């Protein structure tokens, strides 16, 4: 009796492949590897190069910061459209502070630029936090739905970036070495740059906060059912304020990342990035309905976007295909979500 029960319920009756095969992250890794193979073959091997992966990771570093913040917001049941314009705005504010206030120019470079760049980083974070607080105010206090509230701050941020920069990129101190592969002696063995390393650390901490800390638990709870979360004693408005502030702060850091990459605060450096960030989140398996999603998926989704961009160029295909391929990936990702959900319900 006991034995038969064990056999029917607990004993392994062969490897259950379905949960693994329908797991978004597993599929994303498979797609990344498959595309790497296709692009390598299509480019006669030149895709498989340290500098190509440095390029992909450099692009990834910017978008993943936005996508990680967006993941928190989307899981909480909201959306943050202001992240792209916050990149432009914070980069421009950093430029204004260094160029117009501190009177520094492009001749302050490399190690000499570290001090001003650190000040600029703080300015960028403060700008992002201010945008996040404004978003939270519009959502929590004024009661505007997140899509409209952040659409307003998207437009406002883009406008201010143009007004404060006079529409021109503000070129100031820089240290391009921060975005180049870290070298051991004269050789660069790894595609990782200092900037990407910092981003990877930030992303890991954010991922742990989502998966392991009370902060993440509350975020999932509010996204699943905010009334139930409130009834369970969670201060929903305060938590949502933190969620938008985190997204804003990460967008501010992304603004500094963009500045470091371009050597200037450009009012167009964040144009359209909000949609790329949302695409990375959706491809990564986070549901736009809120309440579910994983940071690893977002990180892989962001990588996939730029693997496709670099890969198409290396293969020599028309770059407009990127949009088509991303569209297919979004449709596929949402399809897989539906399939896995169906599996879980069974």
């Amino acid at each position: 009796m006991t034995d038969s029960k064990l056999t029917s319920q607990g004993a392994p009756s062969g490897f259950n492949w379905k949960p693994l095969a329908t797991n978004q992250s597993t599929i994303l890794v498979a797609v990344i590897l498959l595309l790497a193979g296709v692009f390598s073959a299509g480019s006669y091997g030149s895709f498989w190069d340290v500098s190509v992966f440095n390029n992909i990771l450099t692009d990834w570093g910017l978008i993943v910061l936005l996508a990680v913040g967006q993941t928190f917001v989307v899981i909480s049941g909201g959306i943050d459209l202001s992240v792209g314009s916050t990149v432009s705005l914070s980069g421009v504010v950093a430029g204004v502070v260094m160029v117009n206030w501190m009177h520094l120019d492009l001749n302050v470079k490399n190690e000499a630029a570290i001090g001003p760049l650190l000040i600029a980083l703080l300015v960028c974070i403060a700008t992002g936090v201010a945008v996040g607080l404004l978003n939270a105010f519009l959502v929590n206090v004024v009661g505007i739905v997140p899509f409209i509230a952040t659409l307003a701050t998207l437009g406002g941020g883009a406008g201010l970036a143009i007004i404060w920069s006079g529409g021109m990129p503000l070129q100031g101190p820089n240290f391009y070495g921060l975005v180049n592969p870290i070298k051991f002696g004269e050789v660069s063995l790894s595609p990782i740059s200092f900037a990407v390393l910092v981003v990877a650390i930030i992303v890991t901490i954010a991922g742990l906060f989502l998966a392991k800390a009370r902060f993440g638990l509350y975020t999932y709870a509010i996204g699943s059912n905010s009334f139930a979360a409130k009834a369970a004693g969670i201060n929903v408005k305060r938590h949502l304020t933190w969620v938008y502030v985190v997204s804003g702060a990460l967008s501010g850091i992304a603004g500094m990342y963009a500045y470091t990459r371009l050597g200037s605060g450009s009012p167009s450096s964040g144009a359209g990035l909000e949609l790329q960030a949302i695409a990375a989140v959706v491809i990564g398996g986070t549901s736009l309905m809120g309440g579910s999603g994983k940071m690893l998926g977002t990180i892989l989704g962001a990588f996939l976007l730029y693997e496709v961009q670099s890969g198409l160029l290396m293969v020599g295909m028309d770059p407009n295909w990127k949009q088509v391929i991303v569209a297919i990936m979004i449709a596929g990702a949402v399809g897989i979500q539906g399939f896995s959900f169906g599996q879980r319900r069974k």
Partner: protein
Amino acid sequence: MKRTLRSLAVLGTVAALALTASGCAQGEKQLTIAFVMGAESDPFFQAMKVGATEEAAAQNVKLVWQGDPSHYDVATQVPIVDSVISTKPDGLVLIPTDPAGLQASSDKAVEAGIVVANVDTHTEDTSKAVIFITGDNGDGGAKAADAIANAIGYTDGETYQVVVGLTSATATTNVGRLDGFKAQVAASYPGIEIVDVAYSQSNPQTAASNVSNWLTKFPNLKGIFAIDGTNASGAAAALQAKNLVGKIALVGYDAYPANVELIKAGVFTALIAQDPAEEARQAIRAIVAKIRNNEDPASHDVVIPNVTLDANTSAADLTKYTYVAN
């Protein structure tokens, strides 16, 4: 109290009469001209705004400056143009982001009795526009080819790989410059091979990313033609990051102040500069002349020559052609 009010009323009437008299003295009704450009975040249009504002003030014109903040895109421009037309301005200066996409809006404006001018780019049919003013894009592209050939020390019999960074496949300025570049290469520098083109969609990050990938894909790359200011900014950042300044010829377009600085630093071999402020001035002048005096411009298509800025350009000329904002 009553007396004070009465005094104020008298003062107000006198002031109003004085204002009316000054208007009559000029003898011209103030015109409203709407100016719909490509993307506010592009310094080219900021420099254009300076010229438009100056000329509008000089001609007693109320200027309505409109356009998308950051997207150079037909989808965002059409609704802006259509709503501007519904405000019934006297004139419309239009910089169409797509020749076919803006044709219907342009026709609608003409039917509503609005005098239309095209600047920088044009709609498919420019016959109904009072004037079309542009920088000479074909000539600019040819000058870029000359500058690259000069920088790489072109000699017949050798082959040289060159890439071109564009914003979009359809913007008429991009197409004109690329055609001019290709024609000059075919005519004078057959050893130059254009191995790839890519699009930045008006984002300097994307432009930098494209150039970084090219530097890997084409290890023997000799030159880059960055076809507008956004591409120029991105390409300059990528070359500096990869420590390839001076090793690859970089010819950009548009004299953004930041890019002019980089000529001095040796990052740009040359910049091809336009005169956007002058384009705007001429467009407003043509519309005003048409409305007030029913005068057509001497020539329907006006081409303002581009200039090549490089390390040998005088400081005075660099200042003259650098784009400035209000």
